């Protein structure tokens, strides 16, 4: 039995979006000590793109979860779950959403990790920014109890924004929280959240309702499915999923994909993979770096790749472009090709 506690403690799942920000504030206002937890799965949208692409250099580069924590005056614990998350993505018990987003399994996993953290750090309950009916998969009235049960969070899991729509949790029954000062938000409308944000004086916040996961992005999902389809196994490493975010991807054959950098920032970043992938680079003109994921089974495949890379160089209208092919061991060969005309790029290559 816990004794002599002067202040109850809650751990909050912080995504960096508005809902978790509001949920924390609601609980702080009831005198609860809150600390945040944020899970890095490898599929976060904001970090990689902004870091890699030079054209985003003017955008403010910040981690929204950290920013939110700072606005709320709470500690934030960022946990690397990249390896553990693979099983969630590859084998979701409740399946995928519209793309390759295993939202229900994902939320359950994160709450389960928070439960573990709670026990390790002697905290009392968990809060999330979930709202009944907000999301088609993980935030439905029927699925929210599944998250609570399967995660082991049970009645230690409090959703402050929708609490009045849900059965009373232990913190409410025990009087740690005043249920009347929790909320009854539901549905996809954002108006109640906007109004509460205004009431709390939050004038700046990240894109409402999250949207921070690449797995919900159609274009990314297609690239991921292509990778799975053309490899002997769906297992992946962090580098694999980062690579899916950069460059133009062309699937030339089941055993061969090439990735051509779109701009200087990506080219610079891709340079770091030259010891893991065969690379192609124009030598007679400025142009994009290309990484070869797979191998050439014929000179025709090699020349197709060279012509495509030439197409995306500044020599695209030149009669001939010289390019180098660098092997992983550093050895290089020189080649000259006619850049591929736009109309020769087959639609089925483009991922």
């Amino acid at each position, binding site marked *: 039995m816990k004794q002599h506690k002067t202040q109850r403690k809650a751990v909050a799942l912080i995504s960096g979006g508005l809902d978790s920000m509001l949920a924390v504030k609601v609980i702080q206002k009831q005198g609860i000590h809150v600390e945040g937890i944020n899970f*890095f799965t490898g599929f976060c949208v*904001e*970090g990689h793109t*902004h*870091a890699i692409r030079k054209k985003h250099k003017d955008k403010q*580069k*910040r*981690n929204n979860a950290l920013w939110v924590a700072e606005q709320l005056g709470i500690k934030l614990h960022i*946990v*690397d779950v990249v390896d553990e998350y693979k099983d969630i993505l590859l084998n979701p018990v409740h399946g995928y959403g519209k793309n390759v987003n295993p939202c229900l399994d994902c939320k359950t996993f994160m709450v389960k990790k928070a439960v573990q953290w709670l026990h390790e750090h002697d905290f009392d309950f968990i809060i999330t920014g979930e709202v009944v009916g907000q999301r088609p998969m993980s935030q439905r009235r029927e699925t929210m109890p599944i998250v609570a049960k399967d995660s082991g969070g049970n009645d230690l899991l409090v959703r402050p924004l929708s609490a009045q729509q849900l059965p009373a949790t232990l913190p409410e029954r025990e009087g740690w929280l005043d249920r009347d000062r929790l909320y009854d938000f539901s549905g996809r409308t954002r108006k109640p959240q906007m109004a509460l944000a205004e009431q709390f004086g939050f004038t700046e916040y990240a894109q409402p309702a999250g949207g921070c996961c690449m797995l919900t992005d159609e274009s990314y999902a297609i690239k991921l499915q292509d990778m799975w389809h053309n490899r002997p196994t769906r297992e992946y490493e962090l580098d694999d999923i980062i690579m899916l975010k950069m460059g133009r991807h062309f699937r030339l054959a089941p055993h061969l994909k090439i990735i051509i950098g779109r701009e200087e920032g990506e080219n610079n970043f891709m340079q770091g993979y030259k010891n893991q992938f065969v690379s192609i680079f124009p030598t007679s003109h400025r142009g994009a770096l290309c990484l070869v994921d797979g191998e050439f089974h014929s000179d025709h495949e090699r020349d197709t790749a060279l012509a495509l890379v030439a197409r995306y160089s500044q020599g695209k209208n030149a009669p001939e472009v010289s390019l180098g092919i660098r092997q992983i061991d550093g050895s290089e060969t020189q080649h000259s090709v006619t850049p591929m005309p736009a109309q020769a790029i087959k639609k089925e290559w483009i991922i």
Partner: protein
Amino acid sequence: MSPSKTEHQLDARRLLCPLPVIRTQDAVAKLQTGEQITVISTDPGTKMDIPSWCRINGHEVKSIQESDNEIIITIEINHC
């Protein structure tokens, strides 16, 4: 005269947000109050994220330098 600070270094180059912060967080957890750690990274987001992480956790950023696309941040640990 204050005692000399024990200095540690963390190479977070080529890691993308939020990994430099996670690696910093994990390294700092093993250090004592008063020790210093220098984090070298290439993700421009670390210029905001590591100081932000330090502020919410009570650690002090002693300096931020940039050279050759590298960001070098020195932190003094304070496990308050």
